[in-house]
């Protein structure tokens, strides 16, 4: 299954990440996993695909997350985390015209499609205008 709306997410014990701009954010001592998590950000044609399903003992971050092997999210900005440091980046052909960075995560992993806060606020503002 493939999803690309803002807020759509995938969770697994390993994800394959694909994008043209990959970076790590600051590490967090997460309340959810009760341990250290490595947060990451994908920009420009981001994809996150489940390559290993979530262990039964792990608790999900979001009840609406896709959880089956092969499930995938796609977005211009994807944020997420993994409980182990992301593996080595490789660069390979993603389309006939562009290459992309591929990174595999290990441990409990979560990724979600996001948009910029300014765009999000504009959308909220419009909803308020619409209600008036």
């Amino acid at each position, binding site marked *: 299954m493939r999803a690309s709306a803002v807020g759509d997410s995938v969770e697994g014990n390993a994800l394959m990440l694909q994008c043209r701009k990959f970076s*790590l954010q600051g590490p967090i001592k997460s309340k959810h996993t009760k341990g250290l998590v490595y947060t990451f950000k994908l920009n420009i044609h981001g994809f996150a695909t489940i390559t290993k399903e979530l262990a039964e003992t792990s608790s999900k971050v979001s009840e609406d997350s896709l959880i089956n092997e092969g499930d995938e999210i796609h977005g211009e900005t994807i944020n997420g985390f993994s409980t182990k440091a992301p593996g080595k980046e490789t660069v390979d052909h993603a389309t006939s015209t562009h290459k992309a960075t591929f990174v595999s995560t290990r441990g409990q992993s979560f990724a979600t499609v996001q948009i910029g806060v300014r765009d999000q606020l504009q959308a909220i503002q419009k909803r308020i205008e619409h209600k008036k």
Partner: protein
Amino acid sequence: MTDFFKTVTTTELTTQPNIGGFDVLARVSRATSSNVTQITTMETQTFVSKILQLQAEWKDDVRLLNDVINWQHKINDFNSSYAAYLLEQIDADEFDKVAEALAYEELDTPPLAIVPVIGRLLELTTLDYTSSDLANMLHCSEDTIQEALGLLPHHLIDAHPSLIEVLE
């Protein structure tokens, strides 16, 4: 400047016999085209309070911008260590130690408390943050950020009533 000071004439000052002690700042000015010299005064205490108010606002802004710089610096630092790890200059254990040292605990911040912070941050900087970025910078959960973002438009309207006209 003229809104800031009260204009009086010297006659007014010298013809008030009952006036007690006073503490004012005076500004003497004359336009090039005029022959009239104006003296404007302001209570020193009022002037000082205005300066202190500005100072408090600037201090908050500086603290906020300082947080942004520290957050960006931490990310750069961490990504440099990640590059070193990818290039096998440090091993996984060493990288984990770096992460452990830089990691922060998620705080239970009330969403209402960070609404003005996010509002000011968006005014002061031009970066396009995601909610994860803000959670990372403000050391709170993404749920807290989402709740705060939901409250932000109302806060902006309260802070700038002129926006109501725009909305209408």
